[in-house]
């Protein structure tokens, strides 16, 4: 069988999926939970609680701050300690709501039973109702980018959705949270997928999984046949070759349905696909069927030096320190702490950073592996060009950034860069390609925004 994958570029980093077979544990409640107001793409949320207010698990503590935004719900019960600033995953101090945890009292509306609810038993869930409830539950893309999910389900009038693709690729090394979620909650994920398909008014669904997760492919293929056999929906599990960055939206669309998403501002729905992470499908199930807004997520805490790396079902707002301690504590010596995996993760300087909606992993890299090698001159080998999954010329973009030639960088499509880091990973001269390209991308995007604002 010819296994599918995306058409250009890509790399294959060492997998290091240390926690594949470690069953998910429920993380202990934190003493104090920290909720950054800007944990999604778009406008930061606006607090609706004040210092001293009592909240329960599932109480809304901040409302959406604009159209592209999402509300935030408390993951703990207790008292609002203060609305202040704290270091979040950006590395800067940002506005947060801090809640002192007292007991564990849930909102009554949340259904805490394990009973599997099916879409056919809930005729009140019309497509509009589904989108609305996803919006109010604060569900955002759980793969890391945190784009509000409801917006993806409402494509612009020029585009028409044809299928929903579930992103269960998990191509990033180390991370296993999505895999554990699939193994432990396959039924719920499929109901979530059905809800997403109904919400987007399509009948075709795909689940893209890399072949390093054979058990998940087998399980979901079997369940799909059971659940969707004989219904109006047709869902296909697509095994994909192991290749990074297959989990990138555009790469996944290319791999699964062989359609190429044009350069920005085009999005996957312009070629008919709505891509949602497997964690998002689960969150949608819980939000709609169990009336449970998004305040918990699956997170992998991993690292070669960590004593007991594991997967956790964790309440958002829990400081990373609590999870690291649950895994045997920070290893000796200097370590590199990442929110996310080693390829796309963001290095942090504080263990007090809380788990947010997009924190799929806490990765700890030991000192020996953390440092970059000394950069050497570019030898024009063009390995970065072959590795770039977006068909860009990383060596050129990096150079343009270094000499601040933003006009040319814009012409060379720097804004198409997905910041996957394949170029830098593959560079034999250890050049800081992505660092430069990221600078160029943010500068050029600023220039484009200014230009649009002037018009």
């Amino acid at each position: 069988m010819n296994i599918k994958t995306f058409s250009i570029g890509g790399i294959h980093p060492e997998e290091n999926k240390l926690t594949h077979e470690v069953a998910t544990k429920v993380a202990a409640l934190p003493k104090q939970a920290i909720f950054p107001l800007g944990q999604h793409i778009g406008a930061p949320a606006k607090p609706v609680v004040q210092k001293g207010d009592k909240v329960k698990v599932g109480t809304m503590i901040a409302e959406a701050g604009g159209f592209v935004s999402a509300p935030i719900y408390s993951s703990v019960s207790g008292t609002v300690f203060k609305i202040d600033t704290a270091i979040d995953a950006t590395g800067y101090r940002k506005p947060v709501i801090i809640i002192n945890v007292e007991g564990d009292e849930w909102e009554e509306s949340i259904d805490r039973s394990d009973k599997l609810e099916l879409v056919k038993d809930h005729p009140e869930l019309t497509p509009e109702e589904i989108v609305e409830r996803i919006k109010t539950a604060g569900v955002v893309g759980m793969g890391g980018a945190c784009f509000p999910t409801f917006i993806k389900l409402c494509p612009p009038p020029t585009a028409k959705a044809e299928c929903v693709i579930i992103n269960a690729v998990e191509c990033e090394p180390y991370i296993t949270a999505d895999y554990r979620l699939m193994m432990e909650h396959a039924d719920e994920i499929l109901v979530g997928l059905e809800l997403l398909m109904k919400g987007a008014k399509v009948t075709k669904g795909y689940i893209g999984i890399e072949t390093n997760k054979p058990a998940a492919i087998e399980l979901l293929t079997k369940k799909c046949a059971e659940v969707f056999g004989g219904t109006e929906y047709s869902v296909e599990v697509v095994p994909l070759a192991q290749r990074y960055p297959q989990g990138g939206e555009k790469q996944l669309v290319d791999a699964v349905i062989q359609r190429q998403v044009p350069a920005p501002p085009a999005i996957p729905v312009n070629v008919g696909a709505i891509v949602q992470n497997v964690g998002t499908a689960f969150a949608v199930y819980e939000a709609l069927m169990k009336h449970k807004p998004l305040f918990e997520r699956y997170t992998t805490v991993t690292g070669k030096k960590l004593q007991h790396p594991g997967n956790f079902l964790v309440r958002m707002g829990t400081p990373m320190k609590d999870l690291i301690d649950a895994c045997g504590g920070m290893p000796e010596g200097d370590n590199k702490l990442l929110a996310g995996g080693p390829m796309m993760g963001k290095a942090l300087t504080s263990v007090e950073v809380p788990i947010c909606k997009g924190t799929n992993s806490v990765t700890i890299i030991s000192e020996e592996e953390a440092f970059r090698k000394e950069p050497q001159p570019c030898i024009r080998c063009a390995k970065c060009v072959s590795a770039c999954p977006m068909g860009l010329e990383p060596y050129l973009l990096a150079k343009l950034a270094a000499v601040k030639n933003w006009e040319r960088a814009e012409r060379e499509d720097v804004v198409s860069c997905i910041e996957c880091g394949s170029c830098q990973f593959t560079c034999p001269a250890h050049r800081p390609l992505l660092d430069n390209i990221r600078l160029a991308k943010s500068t050029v995007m600023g220039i484009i925004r200014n230009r649009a604002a002037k018009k």
Partner: protein
Amino acid sequence: MDFMLIAVAVLGAIGLIAALVLFACSKKFAVYEDPRIAQVTELLPGANCGGCGFAGCGGLADALVKGADAGSLDGLMCPVGGQEVMGKVADLLGMAIANGEPMVAVVRCNGTCDLRPKIAEYSGLRTCAAMNACGAGETACGFGCLGCGDCVAACQFDAIHVNPETGLAEVDEEMCVACGACVKACPRNIIELRKKGPKGRRVFVSCVNKDKGPVAMKACKAACIGCGKCEKECPFGAITVENNVSYIDHTKCRLCRKCVAVCPTGSIHTVNFPAPKPKEEKEEQA
């Protein structure tokens, strides 16, 4: 013989017609450029640094001539040439001397390696812009100097350097022409153009940390904690505390230095004041 005469006549006729056409065109499509623009450009330093806010010296010259016609040279200033050049320009244009006080770039961070301990090691691209995009940098202060020298690279006058002892950018007053290139290059807006002051004497808050007092203090022992003591002390209303950080308005400051004495963290800096008996000179006029 006839051939030669015909050739001469034809060529002469063509030449005459072409000359008439060219003459007509040059009259019809003549572009008048004020000759003063070229003269003013000649007077300007020709560094094309952009410190005046225009793309180059030609742009400033154009604006100066237009300004002279409109009757005012306000806001037009060549920071490189300074008073001297602007005086000559004003003479040429028959205007009163252009108003502009000598300025100098000031780095508002005093978090040296001793006062602002390192909490992390950065191994990415060593430019301030890249490090700033990654987070707070190697120290816990998200506002302070990153010390990678983006300002040094931007300076065309070799007037700013990173001191390896302190890890901070330092301005060479003699060399600085206040073109503002470093101000634009700094991703954290630490550098500011301030009045050079009489005999180069200045008082400024050497910190831009907007964190609350305890947080700022934990990150850096010399941080401004926004306590407001200086604001209360200032007899001239030159000091304002906003977002937990104090700022001295250099246009209002009279250099009395009362604020320096009350600052609990020593984040208010004075430069070029004589060391002995500093109190006697406090009424020095700005």
